[in-house]
């Protein structure tokens, strides 16, 4: 049996993951992508790992502001307040 649309290979799928997650795949490509996932456990794992990467990135805490930088910025802010009449 020959499918109407050629099957997506795993090698192709890994290059489309970001487009898929960004919802920027054309509808037919998206269908091929999702069809492939229904039977390919390995690509499901790949996609799951990509999602785990994104979740972990979202939990990254910002590098904190060094105390010297913070003090310098506060000094700037106080000068500005004095000079601009802000804060009155």
């Amino acid at each position, binding site marked *: 049996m020959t499918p109407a649309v050629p099957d997506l290979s*795993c090698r192709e799928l890994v290059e489309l993951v*970001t487009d898929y997650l960004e919802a920027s795949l054309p509808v037919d490509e998206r269908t091929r992508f999702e069809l492939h996932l229904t039977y390919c456990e390995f690509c499901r794992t790949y996609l799951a*790992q990509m999602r785990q990467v994104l979740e972990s*990135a979202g939990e990254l805490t910002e590098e904190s502001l060094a105390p010297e*930088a913070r003090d310098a910025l506060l000094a700037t802010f106080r000068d500005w307040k004095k000079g601009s009449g802000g804060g009155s």
Partner: protein
Amino acid sequence: MEPPSVSEPAGITTEERELAALRAGDEAAFLALVTRHHGAMVRVATTFVRSQAIAEEVVQETWVGVLRGLHLFEGRSSLKSWIFSILVNCAKARGLKEVRSVPMSSLGPEEEEDAPSVSPDRFRGDEDRWAGHWAEPPAPWPDARVESSELVALVAEALDTLPQAQRTVMSLRDVDGWDSGEVCALLGITEVNQRVLLHRARSKVRAFLEERLGREGLP
């Protein structure tokens, strides 16, 4: 997330509140804003200048510019994008003064070879009935390690290994939660470029984690 405020009239956005507090000279509001954007500002600045130390200086300069221009800000763009546009201007001006500044073209995806996201060796060859399918598939990462803070630490480490433009795009998108339009506008790149940079960055970070976590349970 900010706690819901009880005394605010409806329709006043967080940003309008911040702006009013800043203009009133509220130090706590200023520090909150500085702290929230600091990491992203340093990262964006490092895209244009050569060292972390210079990037930190650019961030300081930016706040001076922001305060000086605060009375001119009309709210046509968001406060965040206004602050970051000042940052980019400061960083570029500074970058031009540097001996070895980063050329703007390095923000394009062409900075790099068109490397595949996963090594071709891991797929079956063309002669195979299942050409292009996994030969060495990824194995799920152990739950215990995914649930620990290990993954987060590994992502941080992986981000540091990325080329500058890729790191900036992935950090803004996935760490700071910016949307693609904001990133494109700030860096002056197209949606397509942005997606290519993001894709390369995320693919490399996944590969880095896979390498570190080991590919256990291969068939």
